[in-house]
């Protein structure tokens, strides 16, 4: 089993999730949405990430892959970055297998 993180740095909010993944068994451990409100979004993302890890009883080293999307590419601790359309479509396609996923995101 591995742990992964997803951080979406948007214009108005930073969304952070933690998952445990064991083959096809995928479980959400934490999720949080922090409004940016004139704060530094990257600093906010780092704080949200650390607090999520604390909540899940994990450390940064426990995360096999910390993935960012949106404006999160500049986060120094990320493992990799994904294009927003791919990430949004992936999440909805997984949740609603056999449906076509289109993106109508307004978080960026």
């Amino acid at each position, binding site marked *: 089993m591995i742990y992964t993180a997803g951080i979406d740095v948007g214009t108005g909010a930073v969304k952070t999730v933690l998952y445990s993944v064991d083959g096809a068994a995928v479980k959400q451990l934490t999720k949080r949405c922090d409004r940016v409100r004139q704060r530094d979004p990257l600093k906010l993302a780092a704080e949200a990430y650390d607090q999520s890890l604390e909540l899940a009883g994990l450390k940064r080293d426990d995360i096999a892959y910390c993935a960012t*999307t949106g404006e999160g590419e500049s986060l120094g601790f990320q493992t990799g970055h994904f294009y927003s359309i791919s990430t949004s479509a992936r999440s909805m396609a997984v949740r609603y297998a056999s449906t076509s996923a289109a993106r109508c995101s307004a978080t960026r």
Partner: protein
Amino acid sequence: MTSQCASGSGQFLENIARYLGIAQDEIGTLSQQGETPEKVSGICAVLAETDVINMVSRGISAANILKGIHISMADRLAKLLKSAGTKDGVVMMTGGLALDSGLVAAMREISAKEKITVEIKSNPDSIYAGAIGAALWGAFRHEKLSQLERQAA
């Protein structure tokens, strides 16, 4: 809004709500009360904001302004669906605006008008779609990289 990016549409709607003096939670229900919506620019937020300022000075109601914004966004999204060749099936809306009942209603209205026979759906976790997808892609990429490392060893 472009074919690749929502371009801060949610932030734009938040700004408009603040300008109109209404709470974010009211946007959806108020928009659905609009009967004679006034459309705004669906591409440029600066132009759309100017459109809204003009509407307020002309005495257009908040309901009709919001409905107009939602219809303009839905028009743009319907064009994107058409250009992607979507004719049927289920379309999931993602992002914070997928929780805006006014936009979801406008999307259903415009899809029907444009004869795009898709089922428009939203999800309470829509706002997390990007983050969730990133975490899932991360797991996928991690597995692929591990496989390559094992093959190379």
